[in-house]
Protein backbone atom coordinates (compact mmCIF):
# COMPACT_ATOMS: atom_id res chain seq x y z
CA UNK A 1 0.00 0.00 0.00
CA UNK A 2 0.99 3.57 -0.73
CA UNK A 3 3.00 5.08 2.12
CA UNK A 4 1.62 8.20 3.82
CA UNK A 5 4.73 10.21 3.02
CA UNK A 6 4.55 9.32 -0.67
CA UNK A 7 0.83 9.92 -0.64
CA UNK A 8 1.33 13.47 0.62
CA UNK A 9 4.20 13.95 -1.83
CA UNK A 10 1.99 12.94 -4.75
CA UNK A 11 -0.70 15.38 -3.61
CA UNK A 12 1.73 18.23 -3.06
CA UNK A 13 3.29 17.63 -6.48
CA UNK A 14 -0.12 17.68 -8.11
CA UNK A 15 -0.94 20.92 -6.29
CA UNK A 16 2.31 22.52 -7.38
CA UNK A 17 1.78 21.41 -10.93
CA UNK A 18 -1.58 23.17 -11.05
CA UNK A 19 -0.57 26.27 -9.14
CA UNK A 20 -3.14 28.64 -10.60
CA UNK A 21 -5.99 26.23 -10.03
CA UNK A 22 -4.80 25.46 -6.52
CA UNK A 23 -4.54 29.17 -5.82
CA UNK A 24 -8.07 29.81 -7.06
CA UNK A 25 -9.42 26.98 -4.95
CA UNK A 26 -7.74 28.34 -1.86
CA UNK A 27 -8.96 31.82 -2.72
CA UNK A 28 -12.56 30.62 -2.80
CA UNK A 29 -12.32 29.24 0.71
CA UNK A 30 -10.10 32.03 2.02
CA UNK A 31 -12.56 34.73 1.00
CA UNK A 32 -15.42 32.86 2.61
CA UNK A 33 -13.54 32.32 5.85
CA UNK A 34 -12.25 35.87 5.95
CA UNK A 35 -15.81 37.13 5.49
CA UNK A 36 -17.11 34.94 8.31
CA UNK A 37 -14.33 35.89 10.69
CA UNK A 38 -14.61 39.58 9.91
CA UNK A 39 -18.39 39.78 10.00
CA UNK A 40 -18.76 37.73 13.16
CA UNK A 41 -16.08 39.75 14.90
CA UNK A 42 -18.02 42.90 14.06
CA UNK A 43 -21.21 41.22 15.24
CA UNK A 44 -19.57 40.06 18.47
CA UNK A 45 -18.04 43.51 18.93
CA UNK A 46 -21.40 45.23 18.69
CA UNK A 47 -22.87 42.58 20.96
CA UNK A 48 -20.31 43.21 23.66
CA UNK A 49 -20.47 46.95 23.21
CA UNK A 50 -24.22 47.11 23.73
CA UNK A 51 -24.10 44.74 26.70
CA UNK A 52 -21.38 46.75 28.38
CA UNK A 53 -23.41 49.92 27.88
CA UNK A 54 -26.20 48.23 29.76
CA UNK A 55 -24.22 46.61 32.51
CA UNK A 56 -22.44 49.82 33.45
CA UNK A 57 -25.48 50.49 35.63
CA UNK A 58 -24.82 47.29 37.51
CA UNK A 59 -26.86 44.14 37.35
CA UNK A 60 -28.75 44.41 40.63
CA UNK A 61 -31.40 46.71 39.22
CA UNK A 62 -35.12 46.16 39.11
CA UNK A 63 -37.42 48.45 37.18
CA UNK A 64 -41.10 48.88 38.11
CA UNK A 65 -43.43 50.42 35.54
CA UNK A 66 -47.13 51.11 35.81
CA UNK A 67 -49.43 48.80 33.88
CA UNK A 68 -49.24 45.08 33.19
CA UNK A 69 -47.09 44.17 30.28
CA UNK A 70 -48.14 41.58 27.76
CA UNK A 71 -44.59 41.21 26.71
CA UNK A 72 -41.72 42.80 28.52
CA UNK A 73 -41.21 46.36 27.42
CA UNK A 74 -44.60 47.22 26.02
CA UNK A 75 -46.93 47.97 28.90
CA UNK A 76 -50.60 47.96 28.21
CA UNK A 77 -52.47 49.74 30.98
CA UNK A 78 -55.93 48.49 31.78
CA UNK A 79 -57.84 51.67 31.16
CA UNK A 80 -58.72 53.55 34.30
CA UNK A 81 -58.32 50.50 36.45
CA UNK A 82 -54.73 50.93 37.53
CA UNK A 83 -53.63 52.96 40.51
CA UNK A 84 -50.88 55.51 39.86
CA UNK A 85 -47.35 54.61 40.87
CA UNK A 86 -46.41 57.19 43.47
CA UNK A 87 -43.59 58.48 45.59
CA UNK A 88 -45.36 56.87 48.53
CA UNK A 89 -45.07 53.55 46.74
CA UNK A 90 -41.36 54.17 46.37
CA UNK A 91 -41.05 54.98 50.08
CA UNK A 92 -42.84 51.76 50.93
CA UNK A 93 -40.55 49.76 48.63
CA UNK A 94 -37.53 51.09 50.53
CA UNK A 95 -38.60 49.09 53.55
CA UNK A 96 -38.26 45.73 51.79
CA UNK A 97 -35.33 43.74 53.15
CA UNK A 98 -32.08 43.90 51.15
CA UNK A 99 -33.23 46.90 49.12
CA UNK A 100 -30.48 49.51 49.05
CA UNK A 101 -32.01 52.32 47.11
CA UNK A 102 -35.28 53.23 45.42
CA UNK A 103 -35.68 56.00 42.90
CA UNK A 104 -39.02 57.23 41.64
CA UNK A 105 -38.35 58.61 38.17
CA UNK A 106 -39.99 61.20 35.95
CA UNK A 107 -38.63 62.45 32.68
CA UNK A 108 -39.62 65.38 30.52
CA UNK A 109 -38.45 68.36 28.53
CA UNK A 110 -38.31 71.93 29.68
CA UNK A 111 -36.77 75.29 28.98
CA UNK A 112 -33.82 76.02 31.25
CA UNK A 113 -32.65 79.59 31.71
CA UNK A 114 -29.61 81.05 33.41
CA UNK A 115 -28.12 84.52 33.03
CA UNK A 116 -30.09 85.23 29.91
CA UNK A 117 -28.98 81.99 28.30
CA UNK A 118 -31.62 79.46 27.53
CA UNK A 119 -31.63 75.84 26.44
CA UNK A 120 -34.20 73.10 26.07
CA UNK A 121 -33.01 70.00 27.85
CA UNK A 122 -34.18 66.83 29.44
CA UNK A 123 -35.38 67.13 33.00
CA UNK A 124 -35.07 64.08 35.20
CA UNK A 125 -37.01 63.89 38.41
CA UNK A 126 -34.99 61.58 40.63
CA UNK A 127 -34.13 60.79 44.23
CA UNK A 128 -31.02 61.39 46.32
CA UNK A 129 -29.62 57.93 45.62
CA UNK A 130 -29.60 58.39 41.85
CA UNK A 131 -25.76 58.61 41.49
CA UNK A 132 -25.31 55.37 43.42
CA UNK A 133 -27.88 53.44 41.44
CA UNK A 134 -26.77 54.62 38.01
CA UNK A 135 -23.08 55.00 38.83
CA UNK A 136 -22.81 58.72 38.17
CA UNK A 137 -20.00 60.77 39.66
CA UNK A 138 -20.47 64.26 41.00
CA UNK A 139 -17.79 66.58 39.62
CA UNK A 140 -18.49 69.60 41.82
CA UNK A 141 -20.76 70.35 44.76
CA UNK A 142 -23.06 67.49 45.69
CA UNK A 143 -26.08 65.62 44.44
CA UNK A 144 -29.66 66.24 45.61
CA UNK A 145 -29.93 65.90 49.40
CA UNK A 146 -32.03 63.31 51.17
CA UNK A 147 -34.95 65.69 51.75
CA UNK A 148 -38.49 64.77 52.64
CA UNK A 149 -39.53 63.18 49.35
CA UNK A 150 -42.90 64.89 49.43
CA UNK A 151 -41.52 68.37 50.21
CA UNK A 152 -38.02 68.63 48.79
CA UNK A 153 -36.12 71.87 48.41
CA UNK A 154 -35.78 73.47 44.97
CA UNK A 155 -32.31 72.21 44.22
CA UNK A 156 -30.95 71.19 40.82
CA UNK A 157 -27.90 69.27 39.61
CA UNK A 158 -26.58 69.93 36.09
CA UNK A 159 -25.40 67.38 33.60
CA UNK A 160 -22.00 67.92 32.00
CA UNK A 161 -23.19 69.34 28.66
CA UNK A 162 -25.89 71.51 30.10
CA UNK A 163 -23.49 73.02 32.61
CA UNK A 164 -21.05 73.91 29.83
CA UNK A 165 -23.79 75.34 27.64
CA UNK A 166 -25.22 77.54 30.37
CA UNK A 167 -22.18 78.45 32.41
CA UNK A 168 -19.11 77.74 30.27
CA UNK A 169 -16.10 77.58 32.49
CA UNK A 170 -17.75 79.51 35.34
CA UNK A 171 -18.86 77.64 38.41
CA UNK A 172 -22.66 77.29 38.59
CA UNK A 173 -22.65 76.29 42.24
CA UNK A 174 -25.01 78.40 44.28
CA UNK A 175 -26.45 80.08 41.19
CA UNK A 176 -30.15 80.22 40.50
CA UNK A 177 -31.61 78.95 37.26
CA UNK A 178 -35.16 78.67 35.94
CA UNK A 179 -36.51 75.31 34.90
CA UNK A 180 -39.90 75.45 33.26
CA UNK A 181 -40.54 78.76 34.94
CA UNK A 182 -39.60 77.75 38.52
CA UNK A 183 -36.51 78.88 40.35
CA UNK A 184 -33.93 76.30 41.34
CA UNK A 185 -30.59 76.57 43.05
CA UNK A 186 -27.72 74.69 41.45
CA UNK A 187 -25.95 72.61 44.10
CA UNK A 188 -23.83 70.29 41.96
CA UNK A 189 -22.65 69.19 38.55
CA UNK A 190 -22.07 65.71 37.18
CA UNK A 191 -19.15 64.18 35.36
CA UNK A 192 -19.68 63.34 31.72
CA UNK A 193 -21.41 60.02 31.12
CA UNK A 194 -21.52 60.32 27.37
CA UNK A 195 -24.22 58.80 25.27
CA UNK A 196 -25.75 55.67 26.68
CA UNK A 197 -27.67 53.78 24.01
CA UNK A 198 -28.43 57.02 22.23
CA UNK A 199 -29.63 58.93 25.30
CA UNK A 200 -27.60 61.96 26.15
CA UNK A 201 -27.50 61.86 29.92
CA UNK A 202 -25.20 64.89 29.97
CA UNK A 203 -27.58 67.34 28.34
CA UNK A 204 -29.91 67.10 31.30
CA UNK A 205 -30.81 68.58 34.64
CA UNK A 206 -31.69 66.52 37.71
CA UNK A 207 -34.30 67.75 40.21
CA UNK A 208 -36.30 66.09 43.02
CA UNK A 209 -39.10 63.80 41.80
CA UNK A 210 -41.85 65.58 43.69
CA UNK A 211 -40.98 68.86 41.97
CA UNK A 212 -40.87 67.27 38.54
CA UNK A 213 -44.37 65.87 39.11
CA UNK A 214 -45.65 69.39 39.70
CA UNK A 215 -43.68 70.73 36.74
CA UNK A 216 -45.11 68.20 34.32
CA UNK A 217 -48.49 68.18 35.99
CA UNK A 218 -48.47 64.45 36.76
CA UNK A 219 -49.83 62.48 39.66
CA UNK A 220 -47.74 59.39 39.06
CA UNK A 221 -44.08 58.62 38.44
CA UNK A 222 -43.02 56.96 35.18
CA UNK A 223 -40.85 54.32 36.72
CA UNK A 224 -39.41 53.25 40.03
CA UNK A 225 -35.89 51.90 39.92
CA UNK A 226 -34.75 49.71 42.74
CA UNK A 227 -31.23 48.64 43.64
CA UNK A 228 -30.83 45.58 45.82
CA UNK A 229 -27.83 44.31 47.75
CA UNK A 230 -25.15 42.35 45.95
CA UNK A 231 -25.79 38.65 46.50
CA UNK A 232 -29.38 39.09 47.67
CA UNK A 233 -32.01 36.71 46.35
CA UNK A 234 -33.58 38.49 43.41
CA UNK A 235 -36.55 36.12 43.36
CA UNK A 236 -37.38 36.93 46.96
CA UNK A 237 -37.19 40.65 46.34
CA UNK A 238 -39.42 40.45 43.27
CA UNK A 239 -41.90 38.44 45.36
CA UNK A 240 -41.81 41.05 48.11
CA UNK A 241 -42.39 43.84 45.59
CA UNK A 242 -45.40 42.01 44.17
CA UNK A 243 -46.86 41.49 47.64
CA UNK A 244 -46.35 45.11 48.52
CA UNK A 245 -47.93 46.39 45.31
CA UNK A 246 -50.93 44.13 45.75
CA UNK A 247 -51.29 45.29 49.34
CA UNK A 248 -51.16 48.93 48.30
CA UNK A 249 -53.00 48.85 44.96
CA UNK A 250 -55.39 46.02 45.60
CA UNK A 251 -54.01 44.10 42.63
CA UNK A 252 -50.85 43.57 40.63
CA UNK A 253 -51.01 46.54 38.26
CA UNK A 254 -47.31 47.09 37.59
CA UNK A 255 -44.67 45.41 35.50
CA UNK A 256 -41.45 44.32 37.16
CA UNK A 257 -38.41 44.02 34.94
CA UNK A 258 -35.13 42.85 36.39
CA UNK A 259 -31.89 43.93 34.81
CA UNK A 260 -31.10 40.26 34.37
CA UNK A 261 -34.22 39.81 32.24
CA UNK A 262 -33.28 42.87 30.25
CA UNK A 263 -29.83 41.50 29.64
CA UNK A 264 -31.19 38.14 28.61
CA UNK A 265 -33.59 39.66 26.14
CA UNK A 266 -30.93 41.99 24.84
CA UNK A 267 -28.48 39.12 24.67
CA UNK A 268 -30.83 37.01 22.61
CA UNK A 269 -31.56 39.89 20.25
CA UNK A 270 -27.85 40.49 19.84
CA UNK A 271 -27.23 36.80 19.30
CA UNK A 272 -29.63 36.94 16.39
CA UNK A 273 -27.63 39.87 15.05
CA UNK A 274 -24.32 38.04 15.34
CA UNK A 275 -25.88 34.97 13.84
CA UNK A 276 -27.36 36.89 10.92
CA UNK A 277 -24.02 38.50 10.25
CA UNK A 278 -22.36 35.10 10.51
CA UNK A 279 -24.91 33.64 8.12
CA UNK A 280 -23.95 36.32 5.60
CA UNK A 281 -20.37 35.13 5.89
CA UNK A 282 -21.65 31.57 5.65
CA UNK A 283 -23.19 32.36 2.30
CA UNK A 284 -19.87 33.54 0.96
CA UNK A 285 -18.37 30.36 2.35
CA UNK A 286 -20.98 28.40 0.43
CA UNK A 287 -20.14 30.32 -2.72
CA UNK A 288 -16.52 29.41 -2.06
CA UNK A 289 -17.59 25.78 -1.79
CA UNK A 290 -19.28 25.95 -5.17
CA UNK A 291 -16.06 27.44 -6.54
CA UNK A 292 -14.08 24.52 -5.16
CA UNK A 293 -16.57 22.06 -6.58
CA UNK A 294 -16.21 23.60 -10.02
CA UNK A 295 -12.44 23.70 -9.89
CA UNK A 296 -12.08 20.15 -8.57
CA UNK A 297 -14.48 18.88 -11.21
CA UNK A 298 -12.36 20.48 -13.89
CA UNK A 299 -9.25 19.05 -12.24
CA UNK A 300 -10.61 15.51 -12.39
CA UNK A 301 -11.67 15.94 -15.99
CA UNK A 302 -8.25 17.28 -16.98
CA UNK A 303 -6.46 14.51 -15.17
CA UNK A 304 -8.61 11.65 -16.41
CA UNK A 305 -5.81 9.97 -18.32
CA UNK A 306 -3.57 10.29 -15.29
CA UNK A 307 -6.20 8.49 -13.24
CA UNK A 308 -6.32 5.81 -15.95
CA UNK A 309 -2.55 5.43 -15.71
CA UNK A 310 -2.65 5.07 -11.91
CA UNK A 311 -5.30 2.40 -12.32
CA UNK A 312 -3.23 0.57 -14.97
CA UNK A 313 -0.27 0.64 -12.61
CA UNK A 314 -2.34 -1.08 -9.95
CA UNK A 315 -3.83 1.78 -7.90
CA UNK A 316 -7.06 0.80 -6.19
CA UNK A 317 -10.18 2.94 -6.43
CA UNK A 318 -9.86 3.96 -2.78
CA UNK A 319 -6.36 5.29 -3.46
CA UNK A 320 -7.62 7.48 -6.29
CA UNK A 321 -10.38 8.71 -4.00
CA UNK A 322 -7.86 9.45 -1.25
CA UNK A 323 -5.55 11.33 -3.63
CA UNK A 324 -8.24 13.71 -4.81
CA UNK A 325 -9.83 14.06 -1.39
CA UNK A 326 -6.45 14.75 0.13
CA UNK A 327 -5.90 17.46 -2.42
CA UNK A 328 -9.24 19.08 -1.61
CA UNK A 329 -8.57 18.81 2.13
CA UNK A 330 -5.13 20.36 1.91
CA UNK A 331 -6.34 23.17 -0.33
CA UNK A 332 -9.37 23.99 1.81
CA UNK A 333 -7.32 23.70 4.99
CA UNK A 334 -4.69 26.09 3.64
CA UNK A 335 -7.38 28.37 2.28
CA UNK A 336 -8.99 28.30 5.71
CA UNK A 337 -5.79 29.32 7.43
CA UNK A 338 -5.17 32.11 4.93
CA UNK A 339 -8.77 33.30 5.27
CA UNK A 340 -8.42 33.22 9.03
CA UNK A 341 -5.28 35.34 8.89
CA UNK A 342 -6.87 37.82 6.48
CA UNK A 343 -10.03 37.98 8.57
CA UNK A 344 -8.16 38.59 11.81
CA UNK A 345 -5.85 41.14 10.21
CA UNK A 346 -8.83 42.79 8.57
CA UNK A 347 -10.52 43.04 11.95
CA UNK A 348 -7.46 44.72 13.43
CA UNK A 349 -7.22 47.05 10.46
CA UNK A 350 -10.89 47.95 10.71
CA UNK A 351 -10.35 48.77 14.37
CA UNK A 352 -7.50 51.07 13.37
CA UNK A 353 -9.42 52.84 10.64
CA UNK A 354 -12.76 53.03 12.48
CA UNK A 355 -11.97 53.05 16.20
CA UNK A 356 -15.65 53.67 16.94
CA UNK A 357 -16.66 50.38 15.36
CA UNK A 358 -16.36 47.74 18.03
CA UNK A 359 -14.92 44.43 16.85
CA UNK A 360 -14.30 41.38 18.91
CA UNK A 361 -12.59 38.16 17.85
CA UNK A 362 -14.94 35.26 18.54
CA UNK A 363 -13.17 31.96 19.04
CA UNK A 364 -16.46 30.11 18.72
CA UNK A 365 -17.42 31.55 15.34
CA UNK A 366 -13.87 31.37 14.09
CA UNK A 367 -13.43 27.70 14.91
CA UNK A 368 -16.89 27.05 13.54
CA UNK A 369 -15.97 28.72 10.25
CA UNK A 370 -12.71 26.81 9.92
CA UNK A 371 -14.47 23.50 10.57
CA UNK A 372 -17.15 24.55 8.11
CA UNK A 373 -14.51 25.42 5.52
CA UNK A 374 -12.91 22.00 5.80
CA UNK A 375 -16.29 20.29 5.61
CA UNK A 376 -17.28 22.36 2.59
CA UNK A 377 -13.89 21.68 1.02
CA UNK A 378 -14.29 17.96 1.61
CA UNK A 379 -17.86 17.85 0.32
CA UNK A 380 -16.85 19.84 -2.73
CA UNK A 381 -13.89 17.49 -3.11
CA UNK A 382 -15.78 14.25 -2.46
CA UNK A 383 -18.07 14.40 -5.47
CA UNK A 384 -15.38 14.83 -8.12
CA UNK A 385 -13.08 12.46 -6.22
CA UNK A 386 -15.76 9.78 -6.20
CA UNK A 387 -16.26 10.39 -9.87
CA UNK A 388 -12.52 9.96 -10.39
CA UNK A 389 -12.46 6.74 -8.43
CA UNK A 390 -15.41 5.33 -10.34
CA UNK A 391 -13.84 6.03 -13.74
CA UNK A 392 -13.39 2.98 -15.94
CA UNK A 393 -9.63 2.60 -16.45
CA UNK A 394 -9.90 1.96 -20.19
CA UNK A 395 -12.09 5.00 -20.76
CA UNK A 396 -9.84 7.07 -18.53
CA UNK A 397 -6.71 6.05 -20.41
CA UNK A 398 -8.27 6.96 -23.73
CA UNK A 399 -9.10 10.49 -22.56
CA UNK A 400 -6.66 13.07 -23.81
Amino acid at each position, binding site marked *: *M*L*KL*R*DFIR*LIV*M*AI*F*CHRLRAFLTMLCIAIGIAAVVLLTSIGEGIHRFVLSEFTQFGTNLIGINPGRATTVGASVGVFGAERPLTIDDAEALKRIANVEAVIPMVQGNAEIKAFGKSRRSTVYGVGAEFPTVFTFNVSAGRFLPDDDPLAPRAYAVLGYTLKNELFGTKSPLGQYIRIGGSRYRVIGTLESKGQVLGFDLDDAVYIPTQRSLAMFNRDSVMEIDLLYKEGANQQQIVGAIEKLIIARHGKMDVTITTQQQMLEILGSILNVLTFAVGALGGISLLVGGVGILTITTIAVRERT*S*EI*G*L*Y*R*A*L*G*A*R*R*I*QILALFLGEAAILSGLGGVIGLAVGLLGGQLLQLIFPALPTHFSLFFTSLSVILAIIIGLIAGVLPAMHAAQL*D*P*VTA*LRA*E
Partner: protein
Amino acid sequence: MIELQAIQRDFNVGDQTIHALQQINLTISQGEYVSIMGPSGSGKSTLLNVIGLLDRPSSGTYTLDQAEITALSDDERADIRQHKIGFIFQFFQLLPRLTAQENVELPMLLAGTAPFVRQQRARKVLQSLDILDRAGHRPDQLSGGQQQRVAIARATVMQPKVILADEPTGNLDRHSGREVIRILERLNGEGMSLIVVTHDPEVGQRAKRHIRMIDGKITHSD
Protein backbone atom coordinates in the same frame (compact mmCIF):
# COMPACT_ATOMS: atom_id res chain seq x y z
CA MET B 1 -0.38 -18.99 -18.43
CA ILE B 2 -3.03 -16.88 -20.20
CA GLU B 3 -6.14 -18.80 -21.14
CA LEU B 4 -9.17 -17.13 -22.73
CA GLN B 5 -12.30 -19.18 -23.33
CA ALA B 6 -15.31 -17.94 -25.26
CA ILE B 7 -14.52 -14.34 -24.37
CA GLN B 8 -17.15 -11.88 -25.45
CA ARG B 9 -16.99 -8.10 -25.03
CA ASP B 10 -20.02 -6.07 -26.02
CA PHE B 11 -20.36 -2.31 -25.93
CA ASN B 12 -23.75 -0.67 -25.83
CA VAL B 13 -23.72 2.51 -27.82
CA GLY B 14 -27.17 4.02 -27.76
CA ASP B 15 -29.56 1.23 -28.70
CA GLN B 16 -26.85 -0.50 -30.72
CA THR B 17 -24.61 -3.27 -29.43
CA ILE B 18 -21.05 -3.45 -30.73
CA HIS B 19 -19.44 -6.87 -30.44
CA ALA B 20 -15.84 -5.78 -29.96
CA LEU B 21 -14.75 -9.33 -29.09
CA GLN B 22 -16.61 -12.41 -30.25
CA GLN B 23 -15.96 -15.92 -29.03
CA ILE B 24 -12.26 -15.41 -28.41
CA ASN B 25 -10.38 -18.59 -27.48
CA LEU B 26 -6.68 -18.06 -26.92
CA THR B 27 -3.91 -19.63 -24.89
CA ILE B 28 -0.55 -17.94 -24.42
CA SER B 29 2.24 -19.68 -22.48
CA GLN B 30 4.76 -18.03 -20.18
CA GLY B 31 7.58 -16.40 -22.15
CA GLU B 32 5.84 -16.31 -25.51
CA TYR B 33 6.29 -13.45 -28.00
CA VAL B 34 2.99 -12.73 -29.72
CA SER B 35 1.94 -10.02 -32.14
CA ILE B 36 -1.68 -9.08 -32.71
CA MET B 37 -2.48 -7.43 -36.04
CA GLY B 38 -5.58 -6.43 -37.86
CA PRO B 39 -7.47 -3.44 -39.23
CA SER B 40 -8.46 -0.53 -37.09
CA GLY B 41 -11.53 -1.26 -34.98
CA SER B 42 -11.05 -5.03 -35.13
CA GLY B 43 -10.81 -5.34 -31.34
CA LYS B 44 -7.03 -5.55 -30.77
CA SER B 45 -6.92 -2.97 -28.00
CA THR B 46 -10.02 -4.40 -26.38
CA LEU B 47 -8.42 -7.85 -26.32
CA LEU B 48 -5.25 -6.43 -24.78
CA ASN B 49 -7.27 -4.57 -22.14
CA VAL B 50 -9.13 -7.74 -21.22
CA ILE B 51 -5.84 -9.65 -20.93
CA GLY B 52 -4.40 -6.79 -18.84
CA LEU B 53 -7.40 -6.79 -16.48
CA LEU B 54 -8.20 -3.20 -17.34
CA ASP B 55 -11.46 -4.35 -18.91
CA ARG B 56 -13.94 -7.04 -17.92
CA PRO B 57 -15.29 -9.36 -20.60
CA SER B 58 -19.06 -9.48 -20.97
CA SER B 59 -18.90 -13.26 -20.84
CA GLY B 60 -16.41 -16.11 -21.06
CA THR B 61 -13.69 -17.24 -18.70
CA TYR B 62 -10.19 -15.92 -18.30
CA THR B 63 -7.56 -17.85 -16.38
CA LEU B 64 -4.25 -16.20 -15.53
CA ASP B 65 -1.63 -18.32 -13.75
CA GLN B 66 -4.24 -20.99 -13.04
CA ALA B 67 -6.46 -18.43 -11.33
CA GLU B 68 -9.94 -17.60 -12.59
CA ILE B 69 -9.98 -13.82 -13.11
CA THR B 70 -13.47 -12.85 -14.18
CA ALA B 71 -14.93 -13.29 -10.67
CA LEU B 72 -12.29 -11.21 -8.90
CA SER B 73 -13.08 -7.93 -7.18
CA ASP B 74 -11.86 -4.61 -8.48
CA ASP B 75 -9.15 -4.38 -5.81
CA GLU B 76 -7.90 -7.91 -6.48
CA ARG B 77 -7.63 -7.10 -10.15
CA ALA B 78 -5.73 -3.90 -9.34
CA ASP B 79 -3.27 -5.95 -7.28
CA ILE B 80 -2.71 -8.38 -10.16
CA ARG B 81 -2.09 -5.47 -12.53
CA GLN B 82 0.39 -4.09 -10.06
CA HIS B 83 2.50 -7.22 -9.81
CA LYS B 84 2.00 -9.31 -12.93
CA ILE B 85 1.31 -6.96 -15.82
CA GLY B 86 3.26 -4.19 -17.47
CA PHE B 87 1.50 -1.85 -19.89
CA ILE B 88 3.11 0.10 -22.71
CA PHE B 89 1.00 2.65 -24.55
CA GLN B 90 1.21 4.34 -27.91
CA PHE B 91 1.31 7.78 -26.28
CA PHE B 92 3.69 6.74 -23.48
CA GLN B 93 1.41 8.06 -20.68
CA LEU B 94 4.23 9.58 -18.68
CA LEU B 95 3.26 12.10 -16.02
CA PRO B 96 4.66 15.41 -17.32
CA ARG B 97 5.37 16.86 -13.87
CA LEU B 98 7.57 13.93 -12.80
CA THR B 99 11.15 13.27 -13.86
CA ALA B 100 11.98 10.13 -15.80
CA GLN B 101 13.15 8.40 -12.65
CA GLU B 102 10.07 9.48 -10.69
CA ASN B 103 7.89 8.13 -13.47
CA VAL B 104 9.68 4.80 -13.22
CA GLU B 105 9.29 4.84 -9.45
CA LEU B 106 5.55 5.43 -9.66
CA PRO B 107 4.39 1.77 -9.68
CA MET B 108 6.66 1.01 -6.71
CA LEU B 109 5.43 4.12 -4.93
CA LEU B 110 1.83 2.96 -5.37
CA ALA B 111 2.89 -0.47 -4.08
CA GLY B 112 4.47 1.07 -0.99
CA THR B 113 8.10 0.19 -1.70
CA ALA B 114 10.60 2.00 0.50
CA PRO B 115 12.13 5.12 -1.13
CA PHE B 116 15.70 3.82 -1.07
CA VAL B 117 14.83 0.49 -2.68
CA ARG B 118 12.68 2.35 -5.17
CA GLN B 119 15.46 4.66 -6.29
CA GLN B 120 17.95 1.82 -6.58
CA ARG B 121 15.65 -0.29 -8.70
CA ALA B 122 14.51 2.58 -10.90
CA ARG B 123 18.07 3.58 -11.63
CA LYS B 124 19.06 0.01 -12.37
CA VAL B 125 16.27 -0.40 -14.91
CA LEU B 126 17.01 3.00 -16.47
CA GLN B 127 20.63 1.98 -16.78
CA SER B 128 19.77 -1.31 -18.46
CA LEU B 129 17.70 0.69 -20.98
CA ASP B 130 20.61 3.08 -21.48
CA ILE B 131 18.83 6.27 -20.36
CA LEU B 132 20.17 6.68 -16.86
CA ASP B 133 21.74 9.96 -17.96
CA ARG B 134 18.19 11.25 -18.50
CA ALA B 135 16.90 10.17 -15.09
CA GLY B 136 16.42 13.76 -13.90
CA HIS B 137 14.74 15.01 -17.08
CA ARG B 138 11.06 15.61 -17.47
CA PRO B 139 9.18 13.97 -20.37
CA ASP B 140 9.02 17.16 -22.42
CA GLN B 141 12.81 17.25 -22.38
CA LEU B 142 13.04 13.77 -23.92
CA SER B 143 12.63 12.50 -27.48
CA GLY B 144 9.79 10.13 -28.33
CA GLY B 145 12.10 7.13 -28.30
CA GLN B 146 13.54 8.12 -24.94
CA GLN B 147 10.05 8.65 -23.52
CA GLN B 148 8.99 5.19 -24.66
CA ARG B 149 12.09 3.71 -23.06
CA VAL B 150 11.18 5.41 -19.78
CA ALA B 151 7.68 3.95 -20.18
CA ILE B 152 9.19 0.49 -20.73
CA ALA B 153 11.30 0.95 -17.62
CA ARG B 154 8.16 1.82 -15.71
CA ALA B 155 6.31 -1.20 -17.10
CA THR B 156 9.06 -3.64 -16.19
CA VAL B 157 10.35 -2.28 -12.89
CA MET B 158 7.88 -4.45 -10.96
CA GLN B 159 9.15 -7.47 -12.91
CA PRO B 160 5.79 -8.48 -14.36
CA LYS B 161 5.12 -11.80 -16.01
CA VAL B 162 3.69 -10.24 -19.11
CA ILE B 163 4.23 -7.03 -21.07
CA LEU B 164 1.28 -5.71 -23.01
CA ALA B 165 2.24 -3.16 -25.66
CA ASP B 166 -0.50 -1.37 -27.61
CA GLU B 167 1.07 0.14 -30.74
CA PRO B 168 4.37 0.83 -28.93
CA THR B 169 5.99 2.14 -32.11
CA GLY B 170 2.90 3.92 -33.44
CA ASN B 171 4.13 7.31 -32.35
CA LEU B 172 7.84 6.86 -33.12
CA ASP B 173 10.09 7.26 -36.14
CA ARG B 174 11.37 4.06 -37.74
CA HIS B 175 14.72 4.15 -36.00
CA SER B 176 13.37 4.73 -32.48
CA GLY B 177 10.66 2.16 -33.19
CA ARG B 178 13.23 -0.50 -33.99
CA GLU B 179 15.16 0.30 -30.86
CA VAL B 180 12.04 0.01 -28.70
CA ILE B 181 11.18 -3.33 -30.28
CA ARG B 182 14.71 -4.61 -29.70
CA ILE B 183 14.45 -3.65 -26.02
CA LEU B 184 11.10 -5.41 -25.69
CA GLU B 185 12.54 -8.52 -27.37
CA ARG B 186 15.45 -8.49 -24.97
CA LEU B 187 13.05 -8.39 -22.02
CA ASN B 188 11.16 -11.26 -23.63
CA GLY B 189 14.44 -13.10 -23.81
CA GLU B 190 14.73 -12.64 -20.04
CA GLY B 191 11.49 -14.56 -19.58
CA MET B 192 8.64 -12.04 -19.71
CA SER B 193 5.79 -12.84 -22.03
CA LEU B 194 5.40 -10.14 -24.68
CA ILE B 195 2.19 -9.30 -26.49
CA VAL B 196 2.44 -6.51 -29.05
CA VAL B 197 -0.50 -4.96 -30.86
CA THR B 198 0.70 -3.26 -34.05
CA HIS B 199 -0.24 -1.90 -37.44
CA ASP B 200 3.29 -2.22 -38.72
CA PRO B 201 3.83 -5.52 -40.61
CA GLU B 202 7.57 -5.26 -40.10
CA VAL B 203 7.08 -5.11 -36.34
CA GLY B 204 4.40 -7.80 -36.40
CA GLN B 205 6.45 -10.27 -38.41
CA ARG B 206 9.28 -10.26 -35.85
CA ALA B 207 7.08 -11.99 -33.25
CA LYS B 208 7.36 -15.76 -32.90
CA ARG B 209 3.61 -16.12 -32.99
CA HIS B 210 1.15 -14.09 -35.06
CA ILE B 211 -2.51 -13.45 -34.35
CA ARG B 212 -4.82 -11.74 -36.84
CA MET B 213 -8.09 -10.16 -35.88
CA ILE B 214 -11.01 -8.96 -37.98
CA ASP B 215 -14.34 -7.71 -36.62
CA GLY B 216 -13.70 -8.92 -33.10
CA LYS B 217 -12.76 -12.43 -34.13
CA ILE B 218 -9.42 -14.16 -34.32
CA THR B 219 -9.07 -15.17 -37.97
CA HIS B 220 -5.59 -16.53 -37.75
CA SER B 221 -3.39 -17.79 -34.94
CA ASP B 222 -0.14 -19.75 -35.22
